[in-house]
């Protein structure tokens, strides 16, 4: 699977000034191929998360296009775009993303039940929880988990649907060294199995696992 960004740009209006904008991301071209793992690093506020959200179909760019294989994501209607994100893109946003009323296992199963009426793939979910090291917490509630455990739950969830593209925003934030390495190995393995992976991270260790490391600075992408 190929994901390609062409001339992606994002302007945001400045608070309180209706006619004034600031550019969070200057026009960027980016290509992420199946089996490739790209790391984007950079300071806070450099536009990394904005770029990732535009690539995931969550944030409409001011200019430019995003193609998933040959599909122009932003030419799709909301329903079709959501469906594609569910089936083909595993997105790990920043922070906690759990539904507090569900157990950890049920949170991991969520992407499946959105569009499927069949029995949810519990075995696969348990296997993913095992891989991220929180299988013993499958029946726990999210409010019983630490920040790092919640991140690992989100990582397991992003992989449930075997997406062709994984977009991860600070996936290792709050993890200890051992778990950071386990998560990075998991991403590497997914890439080796054919997934296209884009990591936005401050984690130095990630460079050892990525095929390419890019840096965002002031909304611009540099090698």
């Amino acid at each position, binding site marked *: 699977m190929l994901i390609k960004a062409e001339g992606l740009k994002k302007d945001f209006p400045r608070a309180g000034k209706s006619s004034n904008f600031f550019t969070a991301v200057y026009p960027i071209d980016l290509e992420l191929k199946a089996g490739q793992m790209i790391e984007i690093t950079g300071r806070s506020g450099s536009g990394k998360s904005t770029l990732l959200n535009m690539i995931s179909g*969550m944030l409409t760019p001011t200019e430019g296009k995003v193609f998933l294989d040959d599909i122009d994501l932003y030419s799709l209607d909301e*329903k079709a775009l959501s469906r594609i994100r569910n089936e083909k893109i595993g*997105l790990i946003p920043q*922070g906690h*993303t759990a539904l*507090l009323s569900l157990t950890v296992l049920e949170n991991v199963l969520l992407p499946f*039940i959105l569009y499927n009426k069949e*029995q*949810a793939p519990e075995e696969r979910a348990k296997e993913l929880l095992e891989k991220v090291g929180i299988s013993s917490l499958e029946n726990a509630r999210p409010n019983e988990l630490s920040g790092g455990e919640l991140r690992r739950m989100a990582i397991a969830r992003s992989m449930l649907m075997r997406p062709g593209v994984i977009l991860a925003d600070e996936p290792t934030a709050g993890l200890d060294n051992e778990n950071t390495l386990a998560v990075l190995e998991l991403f590497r393995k997914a890439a080796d199995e054919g997934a296209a992976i884009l990591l936005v991270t401050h984690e130095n260790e990630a460079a050892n696992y990525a095929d390419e490391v890019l840096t965002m600075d002031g909304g611009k992408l540099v090698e």
Partner: protein
Amino acid sequence: MLSLRNLPFRNLKGYAGRTAALLIFAMLMTVAIFGGTMVIGGVRNGLETVESRLGADIMVTPSDAKNEFDAQTVLLQAEPGYFYMDRGKLDEIARVEGVEKVSPQLFMASAKAGCCSARLQMIAFDPASDFSIQPWIADTATDGEMGLMDVIVGSNVTVYEDRIIRFYDKECRIIGQFAPTGSTLDNCVYMNFDTVKELIEASFAKGLNIYSEYDPDNVISDVMIKVAPGADITAVAEAIQNQVSGVSVVTSKNMVSGIGDSLRHIAGSVSVFTVIFWIIGMLMTILIFTLMMNERKREFASLTAMGAGKGILSGIVTGEAFSVNLLGGIAGIVLSVVILSSFKNLIGQGLGVGFVLPSIATMLLLALVALLAVILTAAISSRIVIGKLSRMDASLVLKEGE
């Protein structure tokens, strides 16, 4: 098993405190709409039953009883009373032009003392001339003809297994019991003149009757009058008032008018409370639901990131709103039925009117209307939240607070 269908229920369960608050306000709304309308309907039914059972065009009572008696007092208030006038008034009234039928009644009240089973209103009628009580007796299952010391009791009078009720140490046999009217007629004991005379004499003997100077054979308490077909009831009532001394006259028209005024007054008050409670319940439901969804916008943004479209988010929100409102609404209806059935007598006494619950069909219809009202609230609150969600920038929400 987790599914999109049961996700709203899981969410409601997961936020138990706020769900309980929503349930309570939905309950409050149906209690207001369903319960309030039931109260109005119950009062109307009670008064209609009383009116139909009154069965006379005109009632005549002794004028010296006027201060302590009016027809509505006897019919609608709890305290038993009695008063007497000379039996000769019956013939005087019967001679008035336009009067077709007259039938005397004799009132008596049992004592609170140990000689009586309970403090009750006793009403004696003359089976030969009565046209107002016997029609209901015909509709009531009785154990044969009413003889000496036989009584028929109102629905509130306790009937023990031996079917004996005691007044002034005299035992009476209960031969039947009337269906409820919601009025103090339900606390009455009906008998013939021979029986009440025995009881009046027994009350004299015990010194428990303030009218001991009267001869029970020559007194009556009131006269029920049916006017001749085509006669003007008001004119006949005026004629009686003018031609018969020492009596007070009340027409059924006046009574109905008085009843109508009470009903309008009560219905007005209950309607105001119903509307106030419903509006408060609806506003609170909308407020709590909207605030709850605001707090959970990160959850909705996460669902968006997983690929949930606006239709799915709307389904979850609508499912939660309708489930909690329907459950609360049904609970409110059940609560109203239980409270109104259990305390209908107290409610009637509290309001000072007769109270008879509406029929099952009417209750079902009212329940449906009340449920439609809470469904409307659910629709409004979910519409507001869905509107907010559709304007939400999920990517921004996920970045906030991190």
